[in-house]
């Protein structure tokens, strides 16, 4: 009966569960509800993903109003793929959160935490599913507001200033997007993405549309923390509760990358963005600086969460690099990395959260000697870390492989080399932590304490992600076919132009 409504369910299920959590009142009931709803959304998303692989794009007219008059839910493979990752990670993070926030968040706020998490999930699902440019802004704001709340729940008071900076930057970003969308509407009279794409084609080179694109790209770049607009991210991820860091690091910025892909490839079209405006060169340059600058920053931090946060900014550089290569393979590599990076960063932040739970600190000194005291957690950290580096048989290798392939196909040997050099910095920042864990004696932070392995509810989701890292590093058929289909679909117009030339 609900089969044709599946595309809309990943949005409205968490949306309705969020107020229900408040009505339920009890935090463990809220936890149960949130987890179940999130899991259900995940199952639906995977189903939707498989459907898009078979049947192509799914379109759903909200309120029965046909686009462009009504709002359309439009899920293609790219959306469904990231949606599956987001809902999947959300489920795992919720399972993980129970023990984690019990230590890090005041008990009176647990219900609010789950509510905010569900709202954030609603926003992210909405962004991924919607086919309407303004609707995207609305969902962006739902997820952002929930995110500010989630970040501010951290136990250190610095989380407040981090959340505030995030709020100011995020709102500027959203307003920029709003300006851009307004300019689009002004010139085309429509907000539906497909309709926009059709109508923009006739305005190639129009100055209002160019400005609109610039504002949208800057706005999205703030949201996805593209260098040099990334300054809000490291403090936010450092001081947020661990479960929040795990969720945001693996989903929020990725969804923003998706928004960028959507605006560049679906709405404006690669021709406009890369040919008329030559955005590829700018994005490429920023991506490369991001990779090196932020990887380097990651190597000198002493707070492990900050290390991972800077690493996230660097990894976003890889995704943008894939996009800026302007090819189907490059885009595919970018999408793959969105998916794979979610798996690795989720696992890493979860491991760090477990360390915080047991040692009370995330300083690199707290990691000393943990190889023996928390073997399972550190093993998870190690494997996910290897995935970040891009060691073969992990998911990270797969995305890096395609990224370099894409660069080489364009004869960009230097860029290919730079991508690989970037992994070396990853070796350093991950290696430092591993060395502390396995080769150093416990420091004064943990010496004498009886440190136990993390609780089961935290280990299980962590290891699910670790195993996913290995699984998607070996059996790549699903991720590759999804990313390939998605990229083909998105670059369709581009290939048509090439063929015409």
């Amino acid at each position, binding site marked *: 009966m609900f089969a044709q409504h599946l595309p809309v369910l990943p949005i409205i299920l968490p949306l309705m569960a969020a107020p229900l959590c408040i009505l339920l009142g009890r935090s463990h009931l809220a936890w149960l509800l949130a987890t179940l709803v999130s899991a259900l959304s995940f199952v639906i998303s995977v189903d939707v993903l498989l459907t898009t692989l078979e049947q192509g794009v799914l379109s759903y007219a909200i309120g029965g109003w046909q686009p462009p008059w009504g709002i359309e839910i439009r899920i293609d493979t790219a959306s469904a793929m990231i949606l599956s990752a987001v809902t999947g990670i959300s489920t795992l993070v919720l399972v993980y959160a129970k023990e984690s926030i019990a230590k890090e968040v005041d008990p009176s706020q647990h219900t609010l935490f789950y509510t905010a998490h569900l709202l954030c999930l609603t926003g992210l699902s909405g962004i991924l599913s919607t086919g309407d440019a*303004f609707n995207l*802004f*609305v969902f962006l*704001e739902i997820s952002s*507001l929930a995110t*500010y*709340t989630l970040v*501010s729940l951290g136990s250190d*008071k*610095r989380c*407040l*200033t981090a*959340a*505030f900076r995030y*709020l*100011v930057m995020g*709102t*500027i970003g*959203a*307003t920029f997007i*709003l*300006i851009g969308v*307004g300019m689009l*509407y*002004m010139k085309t009279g429509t*907000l539906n993405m497909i309709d926009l794409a059709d109508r923009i084609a006739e305005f190639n080179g129009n100055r209002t549309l160019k400005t609109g694109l610039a504002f949208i790209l800057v706005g999205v770049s703030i949201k996805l923390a593209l260098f040099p607009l990334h300054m809000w991210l490291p403090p936010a991820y450092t001081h947020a509760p661990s479960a929040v860091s795990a969720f945001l690091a693996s989903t929020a910025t990725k969804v923003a990358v998706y928004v960028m892909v959507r605006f560049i490839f679906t709405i404006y079209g690669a021709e406009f963005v890369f040919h008329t405006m030559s955005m590829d060169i700018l994005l490429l340059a920023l991506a490369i600086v991001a990779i090196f600058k932020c990887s380097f920053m990651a190597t000198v931090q002493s707070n492990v969460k900050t290390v991972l946060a800077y690493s996230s900014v660097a990894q976003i550089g890889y995704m943008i690099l894939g996009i800026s290569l302007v090819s189907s393979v490059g885009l595919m590599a970018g999408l793959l990395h969105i998916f794979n990076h979610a798996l690795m960063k989720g696992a890493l932040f979860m491991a760090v959260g477990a360390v915080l739970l047991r040692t009370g600190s995330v300083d690199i000194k707290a990691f000393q000697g943990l190889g023996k005291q928390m073997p399972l957690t550190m093993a998870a950290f190690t494997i996910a870390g290897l995935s970040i580096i891009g060691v073969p048989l992990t998911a990270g290798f797969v995305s890096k492989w395609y990224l370099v392939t894409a660069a080489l196909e364009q004869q960009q040997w230097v860029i290919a080399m730079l991508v690989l050099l970037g992994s070396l910095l990853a070796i350093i920042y991950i290696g430092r932590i591993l060395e502390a864990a396995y080769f150093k004696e416990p420091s004064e932070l943990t010496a004498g304490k009886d440190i136990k392995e993390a609780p089961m509810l935290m280990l299980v989701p962590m290891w699910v992600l670790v195993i996913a890292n290995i699984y998607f590093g070996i059996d790549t058929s699903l991720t590759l076919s999804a990313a390939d289909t998605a990229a083909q679909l998105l670059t369709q117009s581009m290939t048509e132009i090439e063929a015409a030339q």
Partner: protein
Amino acid sequence: MSFIVDHYNYWIVVLLMMMGFYVVIAANNLVKKIVGLNIFQTSVFMMYISIGKVNGGSAPIAAEGITTYSNPLPHVLILTAIVVGVATTAVGLALVVRIKRAYGTVEENEFEDKEDLI
């Protein structure tokens, strides 16, 4: 001349936006930052509403004898955006209150100094 007449509205709105934007990024006081954010957003709303204006049109409420209406769609969008704006303001101000409690100040450079000491 007609070019100016046709565009003056947008230009002034741009000026307003930029004044708000300047307050957001230059102000040191967090409350003032939020005020700036609101000015910035309100000015963007004006841009949208300007898009919707039709010369000689009236408010988009169907009535006898009126044939030209202004475009209702920007109005709807901005209604939503205003709500989003006030929601952000509320959360932002709540954060300011908490920052004051935690740091004893809402001047950005002052709590930055304190953070460095930690």
